[in-house]
């Protein structure tokens, strides 16, 4: 996983609430056995018409937002299915940061596992950033994860909160399986206790 430290990039405005994971990547594209290659289908039904032509009014079909690495949206972003194909599609398109008033829980977890930073900011602040993003070429925002600030085009800094453990993993691009395996002796001990305390717990065998 690529570390996330600072990012200065074009931000795309998507002032829509309840963007569900079916909208981010429809189920018909979940048949892949890879993590990559989904970017072309990101927001497929919003981005393309029934004949597969780009819809010119959709933000990611417009310059400079085709190069966007930051997305700003409204409430409950990522609701619905647990499909990690949603963050994979965002990442494959180039998005490294999503800013919204709040996120659905499973999607929120999934972004961190892929080096995407989800930032929660109040709706009014999101609307300010969406107005900034409408400045086109001048819509560059800077995200500084270490200092936990979003820097607006006018230089103003907006602070955001993030779980310290997740911040540490993101800054260093750490694989959390590696982190957990440091606790292997504790897991062994837990399993041994469970075999004593819940001997009735059945094993599965087909």
């Amino acid at each position, binding site marked *: 996983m690529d570390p996330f430290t600072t990012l200065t990039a074009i931000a795309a405005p998507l002032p829509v609430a309840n963007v569900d994971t079916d909208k981010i990547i429809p189920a018909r594209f979940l048949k*892949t056995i890879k*993590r990559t290659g989904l970017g072309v289908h990101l927001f497929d039904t919003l981005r393309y018409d029934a004949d597969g032509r780009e819809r010119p009014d959709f933000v990611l079909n417009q310059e400079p937002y085709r190069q966007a690495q930051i997305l700003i949206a409204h409430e409950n972003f990522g*609701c619905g299915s647990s499909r990690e194909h949603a963050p994979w599609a965002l990442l494959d398109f180039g998005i490294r940061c999503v800013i919204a008033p709040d996120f659905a829980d499973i999607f929120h977890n999934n972004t961190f596992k*892929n080096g995407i930073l989800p930032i929660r900011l109040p709706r009014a602040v999101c609307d300010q950033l969406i107005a900034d993003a409408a400045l086109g070429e001048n819509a560059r925002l800077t995200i500084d994860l270490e200092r936990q600030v979003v820097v607006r085009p006018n230089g103003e800094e907006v602070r955001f909160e993030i*779980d310290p453990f997740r911040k540490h993993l993101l800054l260093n691009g750490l694989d959390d399986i590696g982190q957990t395996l440091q606790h292997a002796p504790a897991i062994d001990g837990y399993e041994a206790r469970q075999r004593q305390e819940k001997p*009735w717990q059945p094993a599965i065998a087909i």
Partner: protein
Amino acid sequence: MAEKAPRTLFDKVWDSHVVERLPDGTCVLYIDRHLVHEVTSPQAFEGLRAAGRRVRRPDATLAVADHNIPTSDRRQGIAEEESRIQVETLEANVADFGVPYIPVLDVRQGIVHIIGPELGASLPGMTIVCGDSHTSTHGAVGALAFGIGTSEVEHVLATQTLLQKPAKNMFVRVDGTLPPGCTAKDIVLAIIGRISTAGGTGHVIEYGGEAIRALDMAGRMTVCNMTIEAGARAGMIAPDEKTFDYVRGREFAPQGAAFDQAVAYWRTLPSDPGAQYDKTVTLNAADIAPMVTWGTNPEAVVPITGTVPDPDDEPDEARRARLRRMVDYMGLTPGQKVSDLNVDVVFIGSCTNGRIEDIRAVAKVAQGRHVAPGVRALIVPGSGLVKQQAEAEGLDRIVLAAGFEWREPGCSMCLGMNPDQLTPGQRCASTSNRNFEGRQGPGGRTHLVSPAMAAAAAVTGHLTDVRELL
């Protein structure tokens, strides 16, 4: 001291699975049961392979293919190439890593959230995960069950744990008695209509109250299943005698003396008197009517006697735009009675409503009636065992005589990863869980309803108050 404080069902299951608490409050949480399907696991097994890791507890893991498989005769194999590759990849992975797997042609095959409880693989007090948001279903037996992404699937395969912080506690109490013609589906749609699709975010919802206790296990599973549509990753219902009777004798459940030992432990799980919840919501079952969604998320719901709302009545601009888009997408007119909406397709099945009790409810409405001209009505049992049971009761003959299609088990038209899909503009009464744009096929229009309501729509050709047919 903290040990003595009254605890909720969630607190108890959580506490008993904490392997280690890290200084910032993140917990290494032990996972008792890991259910695996073909869509969200290939990249996880690939990750294990790349890192030279093994599956830590194959005996705590159960795999099945459900999303991609055709619901017509599957002895012919899967025609669609990508779907076939995904199922073959699962079969290769379970063989390589020694994971127990239910083959596609085994009678126990079915939707992962149907077969977990059905086979006794999902038990009270367990932590249960699956790379699928509807894992919340298994909370109906008193487990802590939630959906995870593929990276977490890999994490559980490798470590049998997850790194998690505890959720907040929310209690949804449904008092009183449900009126005739109303079901668990109507309860949960009414709850989502009340608290919204994000109302449960960050929480685990415990359901209680007289109307919840009165539900059979299938109904409890329907309620817990749709918890994720209210934003909460897990829903739970305290185990009681109904739960124990349900679990007893199932294939992977403890047997004999071990079962009695287990029950003694399971009896300690219900929330203590005085346990604190961060949020409590109360509904009266007597106020609930058969529900139907009119829009493109599950909170856009009205009683069947209701009308399509007028976006212009909404003062908030962003909300007004959202409602307008829903009305347009769904091809509706503000103020129109929902019972005037004709349907093209009826889908009965899914992890929400694919159990034997659901099929019995459909057969009751279908008996002596016929699917309306021009309507296609599919019944997709949730598992091979559900199908077998229905056929033993003669339900297949009733619904076939009434003009319904009787299919093989799978996820089917709930999300249209197999050939069962809506075509653009088709209107569907569906017993599934999501009415998002394009969920059942690009351009498809979904109205979520109970099985009895779906059957009523099938025989009349329009969304119908099932109480008129009972």
